[in-house]
């Protein structure tokens, strides 16, 4: 990743200040979080958290309305903004009440590239590049489809986390009302790669594959060769193929394959051999430890989204806000289209420092009266956000109508 122009940069506070004065899309942001509801019920009880200079966290902030929120953000120019839950009382009053508990929140998912360190050779830790980013593409496709098809969710916002991952915000009303237990169940339904450093084989599947697993496998297979075998060359060296072969629970077969590996010249060939030998052995049926879905398990271990399920489970978990800036990289947390996940390039995400230049460049040529972000490379993502808001608004209206009906009925 190119040198960051974020936290370490002296100018960062100035950039942030300028960003929140001129660019941050307050109107749309507010439209999103108010969900078309009475402010008292919804927006005013939402928790925000600001991270100011020197890692000072300010929690339990809440605002009266858009104007109030805008004023506060412009005044403080937070280096980072997190969004929390909607509580039973205004978060800023939380010390005055005995029972302060979260009532609702979007269903969220967080995928972090560091969880893929064991299956990428191009980068590690906080670094990312276009090669390993493809894992994120796979993750977006698998999850987005699962959320829409299995759960019927429709209002899903995918956001770049600013450095090395992605966040998913499911904003349907039904999703926001999910209990902790339900979030936990959804998270575990979607989690397939399990286990820590001490677990070699992280994917174990039953004899009968669940349709969502089959679907994930179909998607994964499209990327497996390019990402796992070519880009990450997971069978390229003896060290790597030995590690790979450890996923086969039969020592005899492992050894056989190990001997065959050097005969091939690249990862793809090796994978072909592995596939055919494993299939042969399974069909033979004399080794109980070799189960029917072993190859699927291996493929998924190398491709299936690795979720941080604690983020999903917690009803009061704070998560970085869309359109916030990542303090370490200076990148804007832009939203992107899951249907076009292949085209999303994290290296091209606007830097807060470049936005001002873009505005000046634009004004230099023509002078138009419009929202400033439209003069920048943030324009596209705002178009996407607008259409997200439009369909959300339709659901909000339906909700409101239903509630009004209920009140009339009593």
């Amino acid at each position: 990743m190119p040198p960051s122009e974020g936290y370490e940069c002296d100018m960062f506070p100035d950039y942030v200040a300028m960003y929140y004065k001129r660019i941050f899309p307050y109107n749309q942001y507010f439209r999103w979080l108010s969900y078309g509801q009475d402010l008292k019920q919804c927006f005013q009880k939402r928790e925000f958290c600001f991270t100011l200079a020197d890692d000072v966290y300010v929690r339990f902030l809440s605002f009266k309305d858009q104007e109030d929120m805008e004023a506060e953000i412009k005044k403080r120019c937070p280096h980072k903004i997190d969004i929390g839950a909607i509580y039973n009382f205004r978060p800023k009053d939380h010390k005055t009440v005995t029972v302060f508990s979260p009532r609702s929140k979007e269903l969220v998912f967080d995928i972090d590239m560091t969880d893929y360190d064991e299956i990428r050779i191009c980068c590690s830790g906080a670094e990312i590049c276009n090669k390993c980013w493809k894992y994120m593409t796979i993750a977006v496709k698998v999850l987005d489809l699962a959320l829409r098809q299995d759960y019927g969710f429709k209002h899903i916002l995918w956001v770049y986390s600013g450095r090395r991952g992605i966040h998913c915000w499911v904003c349907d009303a039904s999703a926001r009302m999910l209990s902790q237990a339900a979030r936990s169940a959804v998270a575990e339904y979607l989690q397939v790669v399990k286990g820590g450093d001490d677990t070699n084989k992280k994917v174990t599947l039953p004899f009968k594959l669940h349709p969502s697993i089959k679907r994930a496998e179909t998607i994964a297979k499209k990327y497996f060769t390019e990402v796992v075998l070519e880009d990450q060359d997971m069978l390229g060296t003896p060290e790597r193929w030995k590690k790979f072969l450890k996923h086969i629970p039969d020592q005899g077969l492992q050894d056989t394959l190990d001997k065959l590996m050097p005969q091939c010249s690249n990862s793809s060939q090796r994978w072909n051999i592995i596939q055919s030998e494993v299939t042969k052995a399974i069909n033979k049926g004399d080794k109980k430890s070799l189960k029917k879905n072993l190859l699927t398990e291996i493929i998924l271990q190398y491709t299936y989204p690795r979720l941080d399920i604690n983020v999903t489970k917690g009803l009061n978990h704070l998560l970085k806000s869309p359109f916030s800036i990542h303090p370490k990289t200076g990148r804007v947390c832009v939203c992107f289209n899951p249907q076009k996940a292949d085209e999303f390039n994290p290296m091209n995400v606007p830097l807060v420092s470049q936005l001002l230049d873009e505005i000046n460049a634009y004004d230099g040529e023509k002078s138009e009266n419009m929202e400033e972000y439209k003069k920048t490379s943030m324009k596209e993502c705002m178009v996407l956000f607008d259409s997200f808001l439009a369909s959300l608004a339709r659901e909000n209206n339906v909700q409101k109508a239903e509630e009004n009906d209920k009140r009339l009925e009593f």
Partner: protein
Amino acid sequence: MAPQSVSHIDMYESTPPLYLLPSLTNTSTLPQRTLVRMEFGGRRALRRKRIQAEASYSSGLQFYKEPPTGNVSLTEFDEMAFERLKVLRAVERLNLSGYIKNSEEWITKLYEEFAKNKFFIILAEKNTKSNTDEVQKARRQDHVSHFILRLAYCRTEELRRWFIAHETDLFKARFLQATRIGSDIRNFLAINNLHYTSVPFIDALELVRQRKVFLKQGYAYVPETDLATLVTSSFRSKLSHDMTTTCRALPELDSDERLVNLLHDFDQRYTGKDYSSKKHGDTCRITPDMIDTLANKSFPPCMRQLNDTLRTTHHLKYNGRVIYGLFLKAAGLNLEDALFFWRSHFLKNMDVDTFDKRYSYGIRYNYGKEGKKTDFSPYGCIKIIMGNIAPGDVHGCPFKHSDVAILRQRLVAYKVSNQVIDEIMELVNKRHYQIACQRYWESIHGVPIDAGINHPNQFFEESQKFLNGGVQPSQGKKQSEVKTTPTFMYSSQSSTQSSTQSSTQPSTQPSGGNTMTVSEEIDMYFDDDIEAAMLEQNSCRED
């Protein structure tokens, strides 16, 4: 107490419902066979005609939808409640025994316990063709005792949780038993209007969690074979809802001495130490310089593993820090020493400022010095076993979470003999993780220990006790902690007033983690559904 001559006080028409009898505060002055009218309804119920005969119970299983009516003597009241409590405790003990819940083994053992004690359950579930009166009586006892305990256990969140969890376990066991021996489940289902085809996914969370149902557009399509899980789920949510309603409707239960006395008597339940707020002088103190040695001698494998990782990499991820931190706290490491200890490791990777900014808060939080200032209890075995392990984590129960080969390697490194390693692997294969841990304890100390291992700090304390005093480790069943204040009732696994720290906490990881959380008033980890599902996960394995 010998029954005295019948002094039948007809408390029917002239008396208000049970909970509104403030004048009867001194029960010892009442003749033993005073009849107590049970009326769980409200004013409207009072106006109902007197129902003499009990309704007939057509099924051995009950959903406890309607409260019972009729009369019951105080003695019966007492006895029925006590017997049911014993039933629930039998369930609780079995849960801690290491057998997989809801497995055939588990259910058989449970019913053996019922038969040994001649609990009403055996009779109640008999086929109605024979001994009808006896059977009906047992079923009525089932019905009545459930509702009596509802009254007793609805008063606080802790009580409710314990009751709901164990009643649900009992129900599921009975449902499975009935299915197993071929009783007419369909009858039971029909009476209770339970039909299943497709349900909104939130009504089938256990099945969703394990990917055992097909989901489409938010609906779960349930096969009949998974009926037990769904029905139990219904049972649990209904009971949970009813308990809250009961509690609200009966505000004066606290002052009803009859109930208070009742609970006082059988409040001497096994609670199990939860190792929270140690009193000084109670245990030894440990200091940072002792930790590495202690780790090898007296720590259970889960904690030893965490310490080993800390020693080699000088870092632990969030959950590891929480679990290990709380364990050390309960083992006797005070806050100042804890800060020193963690700092000494972490400074190998960062400067003091970063440590102070990012990690010291979390440590003080564990000791109840920050945030909502709760003195958190360390995790017990079940919680660790059930915890989630993600790439990069090293917390967890090694007997469950480590690959077999790695576990074996580790045991060899810990100098466990091959024979014992084989025994342990056998136990691990059968998923008896806690019993495996017990074998490990026995192997490194060279003596047997009868008490099962159900808490890492218990492992440590027994070890220290033995090594320092030569005292024989705990024999027989667990020690019961007698808590005689009526308002304090603990569930043996969940925590007490001090809530167990859930995994959501201010994260002190570098900001790339992007997330922060807060602990809340209602203990998230022990939400009924989660706890039950967590414990049930053990029984329903994929494959």
